[in-house]
């Protein structure tokens, strides 16, 4: 009886594992294909043989081509600049706004929270046209930010979701710690910088990761704000390559591999922050 139960359990576990493996293959297949083709010479892609198990004609030629003729290095640099500046600006602005929302009582607080949350429904796709007009002529300052890094970065900085997440994280820090600091003569900025931020390191990790993906994936805003190659991020650069007729599979896949690697590396390195952040952002409360 016990042996039978054990047997059944083992069969169940094996089936489960099989299911997991099959899904893993489905999830990995496009990545595998992308990487494999990126190493294949154009002449080596056969119409009759399944590409997946065809390891002939491998070379680094496609990567050389992507770097030399696509100028992917330039797009890559732009993406890095936009992402790094955007990320820190976004997290700084969001954390500063979240601090009083989480730790202070003041009139207008609920309105402010509701307003920040409501913007989650206003997406770039809806405001693309007025956003273009705003960016080309910033109210009061009359600045034209078209074709500048600032024009790409600033419109993406306000993100209600991040403020929402940070407010929740900050609210969980015990009040006593903060009160002790105030008694010791710490200013509000001091409390924020020396108490709240260091205590929220895991939260900041999650938020930075979200912010990173947000800027690294940016597509619509650069699409309408930038029309010079000099400032284009990878997403736009790849789209331009796509429209160039003579490009081959392989060249292209080399470019996409280059564009994907940083995000994947950061993910593998900071995986727990992704997972914790998504779960907390959606469920806590």
């Amino acid at each position, binding site marked *: 009886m016990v042996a039978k139960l054990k047997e059944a359990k083992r069969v169940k*576990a094996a089936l489960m594992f099989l299911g997991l493996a099959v899904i893993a293959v489905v999830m990995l297949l496009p990545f595998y294909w992308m990487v494999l083709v990126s190493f294949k010479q154009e002449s080596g892609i056969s119409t009759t043989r399944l590409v997946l198990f065809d390891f002939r004609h491998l070379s680094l030629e496609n990567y050389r081509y992507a770097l030399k003729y696509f100028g992917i290095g330039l797009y890559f640099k732009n993406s890095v600049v936009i992402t790094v500046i955007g990320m820190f600006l976004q997290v700084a602005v969001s954390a500063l706004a979240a601090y009083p929302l989480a730790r202070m009582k003041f009139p207008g607080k609920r309105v402010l929270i509701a307003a920040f949350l409501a*913007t*989650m429904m206003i997406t770039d796709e809806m405001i693309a046209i007025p956003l273009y007009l*705003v960016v080309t002529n910033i109210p009061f300052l009359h600045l034209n930010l078209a074709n500048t890094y600032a024009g790409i970065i600033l419109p993406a900085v*306000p993100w209600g979701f991040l403020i929402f997440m940070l407010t929740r994280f900050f609210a969980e820090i015990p009040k006593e710690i903060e009160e002790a600091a105030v008694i010791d003569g710490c200013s*509000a900025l001091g409390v924020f910088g020396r108490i709240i931020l260091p205590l929220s390191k895991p939260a900041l990790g999650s938020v930075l990761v979200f912010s990173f993906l947000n800027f690294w994936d940016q597509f619509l805003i650069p699409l309408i704000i930038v029309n010079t190659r000099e400032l284009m991020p*990878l997403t736009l650069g790849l789209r331009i390559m796509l429209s160039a007729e003579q490009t081959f599979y392989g060249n*292209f896949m080399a470019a996409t591999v280059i564009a*994907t690697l940083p995000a994947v590396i950061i993910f593998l390195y900071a*995986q727990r922050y992704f997972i914790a952040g998504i779960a907390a952002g959606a469920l806590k409360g």
Partner: protein
Amino acid sequence: MTRSFLGPKKMTRTFPGTKKWKRSLHRIALAYAFSLPAILLFAVFKFYPIILAFVMSLQRFVPLGARPFVGLANYGAVMHDDLFWISLQNTSIYVVFVVGAGTMLSLALAYLVNQRIRGIKAFRTIYFLPVVTSLVVISIVWKYLYYPSPRGLFNQVLGLVGIPAQTWLSDPKLALGAIIVMAIWARVGYDMVIYLAALQGLEKEILEAASIDGATWWQRFWHIEFPSIRFAVFIVTILGVMRAYRVFTPILVMTNGDPNHGTEVLATYIYRAGFMNYQMDYAAAMSFILFLVILILTVFQLDVERRVERG
């Protein structure tokens, strides 16, 4: 969710001139000083543009020219535009399938990866991989996977089982479905993580007690597990609907709305009208309609959740 988050509404009253009053003034100034950068950025890049979209939609907009108000004329024109209705229909089909099938698949995935099997963490990582990949990259890779000649991977695989090569993205019957499949693949890992967190929050003892009492798999799911993850389901669908209605990148990269507007969605049509045809007023009217659609659906979903919660 929001109620507990917003905190108690009551504020203590202080009287002008007192020390306490001065201190509270100081505190208020401080709070707004902290929020000021965010308030300015939200005002300039979120609220002002959405108001501007509404104002523009009521005007006849000629670049550099006067902008006379024309009332609801732009909206009237939108209502008589077949292409608008086609885009709305395509977007809605996309939303129903991506959110519907996506929600169920990610829930099933969450169940699978909630097992104690060796290497389960590696599986979670693999399923999550598309989420961290840029949507532009995913769209490009899948565009090539759907390559119409026998060189495309999917056609090669079909060829193995004797099915003739399909034209996928240029076939009006298959194009939208092909993009939907890609969108589900790209997103399923994200929702899985939300469900997984909800499932892991469940008390093990309750589940074990139910098993001992002889509850079937379905009873266990419907009476014990589902009520606890209901909130997660709600969050996943509400975020999913918001996200899916604005779909833009994959369409623009993979088909650009073709074949014959078979994959045209609201966002691509708005983009085309505003930035290709320079009908900014017309595009603004459609943008505002898209905003209203998402607003109404969100309010509706919040309402359903509230009713279910009350029982």
